[in-house]
């Protein structure tokens, strides 16, 4: 419950934030804090310095381009996204955010934080993979863009490395999306989840089954179950689900997400 000693810095710009992260080995970015602070309470991780990204306008904002591309600042909170008129261009985003945790968490927690923490039970990593999002990472050498499929590297590990920051996420236009989950209680932590997007072919990204979202593709919704079986999932067992049960759920939820997407 009680954190270890930590230094705190509140940079006035992204450049300053990057500088702090690069020059302090044990520095971590503090986004919404709805995960990181709890991790620090448990002393499961204890950064030497927290670089507070709250208040950096450069990381805020949601823009809708003429071609339908949505660009979302990494420090956009779930609540902000849910309330954004622009974000309604891709309705699944707000719909899924509305099922994450609770109001208090949604008021502080951020899209970027959800994505960068890459907890296997998070909602957004599979969703970003399914919709084909592109992640912009800023570092000492400037900015680069990484497709979502290549962004997630391992549990709590993404392509945004030490000294780098995810600054924004670009999401192409589209509306035929779906998301299905079995959760611990209504709108609770996911035991298994799947995000789907239909654009000709069917893309389904499955969460909770591996260190990173598992992407399968199929020509039709009917082919999704086979595609999932073909992925030879070996999910972990935990107190909520055995590996066998999780695998089964993955198949069912992938199909449901795909059907929801196709039906839009």
């Amino acid at each position, binding site marked *: *419950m*009680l*954190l*270890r*000693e930590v230094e705190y810095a509140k940079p006035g710009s992204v450049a300053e934030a990057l500088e702090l992260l690069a020059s302090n080995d044990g520095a971590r970015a503090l986004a919404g804090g709805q995960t990181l602070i*709890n991790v620090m309470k*448990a002393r499961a991780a204890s950064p030497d310095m927290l670089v507070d990204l709250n208040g950096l306008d450069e990381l805020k904002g949601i823009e809708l381009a003429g071609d339908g591309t949505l660009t979302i600042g990494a420090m956009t909170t779930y609540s902000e996204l849910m309330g954004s008129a622009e974000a309604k261009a891709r309705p699944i985003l707000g719909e899924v955010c509305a099922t994450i945790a*609770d109001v208090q968490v949604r008021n502080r927690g951020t899209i970027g934080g959800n994505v960068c923490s890459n907890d296997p039970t998070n909602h957004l990593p599979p969703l970003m993979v399914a919709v084909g999002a592109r992640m912009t990472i800023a570092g000492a050498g400037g900015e680069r863009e990484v497709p979502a499929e290549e962004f997630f590297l391992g549990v709590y590990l993404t392509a945004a490395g030490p000294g780098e920051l995810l600054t924004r996420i670009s999401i192409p236009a589209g509306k035929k999306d779906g998301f299905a989950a*079995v959760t*611990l*209680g*209504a*709108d*609770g*932590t996911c*035991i298994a989840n799947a995000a789907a997007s239909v654009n000709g072919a069917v893309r389904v990204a499955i969460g909770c089954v591996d260190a990173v979202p598992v992407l399968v593709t199929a020509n039709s919704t009917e082919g999704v179950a086979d595609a999932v079986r073909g992925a030879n999932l070996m999910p972990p067992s*935990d*107190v*909520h*689900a*055995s590996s066998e*049960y999780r695998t*089964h*759920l993955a198949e*069912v*939820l992938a199909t449901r997400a795909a059907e929801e997407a196709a039906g839009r």
Partner: protein
Amino acid sequence: MRRLDGASKGGGVGFADAGASNPVTEMSETTLAPAPVEVQKGWGGQSVRRKEDKRLLQGEGVFVDDVKRHGMGYLHFVRSPYAHAHITRVDVSAAEAIDGVYGTLTGEEVAALTDPFFQISSAPGANIKDFSLAVGKVRFVGEPVVAVVAETRELARDASELVEVDYEPLPALVDARKAQEPDAPVLHDDADGNLMWTGLYSWGDLDSAFAEADRVVEIPELHFHRFNSTPLECDGALVEYNRGVGQWTIHTNNQFPGFAAIMMGPAMKVGLDKLRFVTQDIGGGFGNKITSHPQLVVCCLLARKLNRPVQWTEWRTDFHLSMSHGNERWFHDTEVAVKDDGTLLGFRTKALDDAGAWLRYEPLGGVIWAQVTPGMYRWRHIELDFTQVATNKAPVSPNRGYSRMQHLWFTERVIDIVARELGLDPVEVRKKNYIRAEDMPYETPNGCVYDSGDYAGMLDLALELIDWGSIPGKKAAARERGKLLGVGIGSTLDSGTNNFGQSRLINPELQFSGNNEVATVKLDIFGEIVVTLGTTPQGQGHETTAAQVVADILNCSVDDVHVRAGHDSYWNSHAGFSGTYASQFAVTGLSAVKGATEMLAAEIKKLAGAVFGGVPPEGLELADGGVRIKESPDAFLPFMACGAIINANNAGLPEDLDVTLNCRYVYRPPFEVPDVEKKFGNLTLTYATQIHVAVVEVDPETGAYEIVDYAAVDDCGKRINPQIVEGQVMGATAQALGAAVHETYEYDEDGNLLTPNFYDYHVPHALDMPPLATGALESPSPFTPLGTKGMGEGGGAGIHAVCAAIQDATGAIVTDSHNPYQRVWRLLQEASA
């Protein structure tokens, strides 16, 4: 929310005229006689708004962590990371060297300064040595090993990481079914094995029952799982030591100070008067705040050692790891003697109870189930072989429904499984076998007396609330949508006001019996009516309901009655069993209040009679905030005058006037010591009834399910405040539903708790709750001064109902009390195989 004949809001109805008293049936050795129930008009029976709310709504409640003392040190426990290990070295020097660390306490010190805690058990459990910190060995993950006290919370936490403890890990025992195998790891060498207590209970004539049976239904294994009520506020204390008089003031939220004192005093080798317990607002208890005495001892020792107040806040993870898990119990090799028409004749079973690493309130769970031996049913031939073992898990101690819940779940499972086997309707089997209203008061096979109740009537009410007739249509509609709908009944009892003599069935050498509770009521100098209780309420509205009882007797307004908040040993308003636990306040606490107030009323009349020149009490009445002569009401003495005369202006009063206007009353329920040989006798005074119905909708593809409808009918006798009663009915329901679907304390094979916090241990929130319809009956208890019965624990009705509903939906036999989605999915796989 729908209510039927239930809590009235606002305007009162007085005592409901429900449920005619039942004819007294012949009873054997018990000496209970029905007491006259006074029907009063007025405050009793009204849903009076709570006095407690004003402060709680403004954040002005005083919970233990709100209490501060100058110079206090914050305590953090170093806890065992192993389920089972020898402690080979403890070195606190690095921690103590930190600036701002005030000191530490180790197991070695504790062993030198204190005696092991008194054990309730007979051998072999009697032989274990339980100290307030681990001595020589750790026996569960999270067991406190060393205590560190420092200037700030964070520093105590930091310093605890510098305490060096070396362990030699040992194999862990996590399955109680393996506890008595020859190669099982042994937790307590002093007990020579993991068996803590065992006893065989047998009543009636099982051989004849099984001979008479048309068939014997066999149930190899039933399992009631480990969970608890996770009160939102965890345990805590702020302890001050007065060196000059050698007395500790223990600000805490322990809900049974009577028990804590009895355990702590001898261990600390001090008289009980040296332990002053002070509680005010407590953030939920549900039984889980009864066994914090080891931690309180540590706080006391440190307050004395360090010569400063010591503050302890238990964090959520600490609570989950170490505090008060509910009894986990298996029922093996159950055999039920039944007739083909569904008549139940009797059963035998082997109950295996997992006590965890220490017996803190156990093995009382080994007898407390016997308060409800036959459940709600009329079978007379019962045998239960009870065995309790130790395992490398958190110590078990009372959890809402304590031990009766486990047994009642068992009987309800038996009913549904028998019904299924015989192809009969579970509703009909229940009605056929329920104890009948006309049988009340009903003596059970082991001599307990169910005081009153109409089970069949309540079941009908519950079925009406759930719209039973619509269920087949709803099932069909669900099938259309690809879902499975199931309905289940959970009928259960909330036995209240313990006869502590039942402890002798566990250990014949114990010198406990009966029960008691205390209240004082006085008129102050300015005529203020001041009440003190011996209880430690955690939200049950004691201040309000006590005021209602007082106001009715003194014929004044509840607003004129000031009930002190909480508990304080200094008020001398407590007795050996004082506290708030075991569904008894409406009987013990309120009867004490009634007794004290009646004493006060009599004294007021005596005083007034003397002041008026010799008017007898019959000629006087209390009204309008004073006392007056009935025949000539102008002769009126306000309470203020009464209080002033006795306290400050008493010259000239008759010498033999025996009036203090400060009345203390000890309520003692009418109990005998049970027959230890036959394990026979009345163990509880009252029996509240709950009958619930749950409707679940299962997604057969995933096993995920939702509780889509729910009805709860409650009967706790006369309700002093129906709204307060209903609130606890609802709360108990929510907790039962949480336990049924999500809440479990599950361990891995190394003894690590897999649900050590609210992230993995899902507690239901507002979105998880089903629609709820409630109903109420009032069958007064013939045995209590107010006709009330204790209530609040709820008997686990929600668990029983959900199990039954899942069985109905899936067609599979439900054998576990905990049915998360994964288990339901497996049941479906098995059912279709």
